[in-house]
């Protein structure tokens, strides 16, 4: 009985530590979840094989179907890690992956894609990082799941993995039509 209260306090502390230490402090909740996609209108990256693509694209071009917005860059290590999985997703089809090339030189990203393949349908260029700020991007790669009616359903920070896709993204892709 004498030790009941100190033990209780210890128990509460341990519970807090157990939960707190397993959280990743770098993953921040996004205030954009459930809200409309920030308005964007960005230049489209011209690629050697593409036939006269539009010069720029905005929200309206993607409305009507759920899609992913993947902020990436050729200078980003995490993007290299997730790239093979994005290739696999693109090959499977089913979801459009809009790439946003974040603060990256066009020549660099063309070379990067030529070496690794291009999973994106189109790649938009965010040279000064303004669109990144509107999306609340604080470190590439970041992936947003957007519903058919243009709301952000989920944000994944860091390299997208098959596990994270199956758990967090896939169930959302049928929603919001």
């Amino acid at each position, binding site marked *: 009985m004498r030790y009941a209260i100190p033990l209780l306090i210890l128990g509460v502390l341990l519970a807090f530590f157990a939960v707190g230490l397993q959280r990743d*402090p*770098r993953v*921040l*909740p*996004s*205030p*954009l979840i459930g809200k409309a996609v*920030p308005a964007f209108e960005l230049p489209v990256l011209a690629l050697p094989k593409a036939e006269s693509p539009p010069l720029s694209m905005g929200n309206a071009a993607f409305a009507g179907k759920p899609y992913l917005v993947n902020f990436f*860059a*050729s*200078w980003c290590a995490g993007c290299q890690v997730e790239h093979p999985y994005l290739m696999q997703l693109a090959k499977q089809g089913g979801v459009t992956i809009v790439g946003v090339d974040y*603060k*990256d*030189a066009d020549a*660099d990203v063309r070379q*990067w894609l030529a070496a690794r393949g291009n999973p994106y349908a189109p790649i938009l260029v965010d*040279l*000064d*990082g303004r669109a*990144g*700020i*509107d*999306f*609340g991007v*604080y*470190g590439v790669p970041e992936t947003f799941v957007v519903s058919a009616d243009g709301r952000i359903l989920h944000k994944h920070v860091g390299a997208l993995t098959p596990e994270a896709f199956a758990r967090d993204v896939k169930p959302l892709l049928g929603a919001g039509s």
Partner: protein
Amino acid sequence: MKRLVAALFAGLLLAAHAQVTVEKPEIPLSVEQEARLAELLPDLRCLVCQNESLAESRAPLALDLKYEVRELVASGKSPTEIKRYLTDRYGDFVLFRPPFDARTWLLWLGPFALVLVALLVLLRQIRGGKRELAATNPKAVDKAALKKLLEEAK
């Protein structure tokens, strides 16, 4: 051979891609606006190096955000509006002083509640001690009962 290796390394360094920094035009501020900016920046968190403020940080994103804030100050936005602009995008985490609301009341009041509990415990301990002391204090002995005892002893 050594020269070849060195050349290869130099090539590797050149081939490594780097983040692009777009040169942006400088935004002139009035003295008063400059002061407002200086007051605002230390309250805003750098999202990349989480324990630094925007005022201190040299991270590329922090520089971008600093520029953005500068632009907002120049356009005459109030500090509240500027903070709204940032929390709309990055959440309350961007503020070093989170607002008091349904999610943060425990954070704000928790320490005071703990101090209150500690004070109550302390008070009880002190009272308990006094009571114990009173029971053994010769001055507090019932004088009538003492007198009676002494009479009986005679």
